[in-house]
């Protein structure tokens, strides 16, 4: 039973972060708060992928040390998810930049940033 908790607690923290982000996107009425919820959601997905790449008894870095032989594979952790998440972080920054640009354009046109007033003004 203790093994079950020690093996799974990292996933539960990630799921809690994901639920906080989803709550922000669905239940808030201001448009800027929805964008902040999107940023929290992206951070939780990146955290999940980085946390599944470790093995038991490793050195927790991806830089080769000259004393530890590299042919015995269980001394190093898997470098593939770290590489893919670098790309994902940069894509997240670009998405947030475009989202804020669109929010400024909406504010210049309609003079409000509230969701219900926007739908009424567009009709």
């Amino acid at each position, binding site marked *: 039973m203790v093994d079950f908790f020690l093996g799974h607690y990292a996933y539960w923290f990630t799921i809690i972060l994901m639920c906080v982000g989803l709550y922000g996107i669905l239940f808030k009425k201001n448009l800027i708060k929805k964008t902040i919820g999107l940023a929290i959601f992206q951070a939780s997905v990146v955290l999940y992928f980085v946390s599944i790449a470790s093995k038991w008894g490793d050195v927790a*870095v991806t*830089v080769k040390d000259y004393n530890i032989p590299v042919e015995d594979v269980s001394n190093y952790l898997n470098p593939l998810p770290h590489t893919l998440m670098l790309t994902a*972080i*940069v894509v997240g920054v670009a998405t947030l*930049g475009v989202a804020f640009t669109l929010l400024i354009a909406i504010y210049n046109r309609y003079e409000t940033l509230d969701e219900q007033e926007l739908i009424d003004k567009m009709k």
Partner: protein
Amino acid sequence: MKRQFKSPIVLLGSRLLTPYIMVFGWYVIIHGHYSPGGGFQGGALLAASILLIRVAGGKQIAKLQIQEFATTPLAIIGVLIYFLTGLVAMIAGGYFLDYGQLPIPGMDPAYLRYTGILIIEVGIGLAVMAILVMIYDNLVRGEDYG
């Protein structure tokens, strides 16, 4: 940012801190081979050091540092460094972006790949810095403060 107060203490603090952040950013880019870091992380640190002065000082002081129209050519140069490395590798035989065939005399193929990765990291860092400063400049374009 309408009605922004002029605060000399914040400006003095950021003027003291900016050169050290820029030196650390160049260190992170160039030491991408031996410690965690590389192109994207160093580019974000360099952009942070430039944006500190722009947020604390206003538009008049920002014009003395990096002009607004000079960030777009910097971004284009950063992307072109990456693309020309790939084209040179393709002309000298081999695939696109295959660094083992770069025409630099007197090195074995493992060391040629080392040099190719170094050139690419510098190009990525320049492009990311210029793009982040350009996004901030366009977001505060129409306001009339300081």
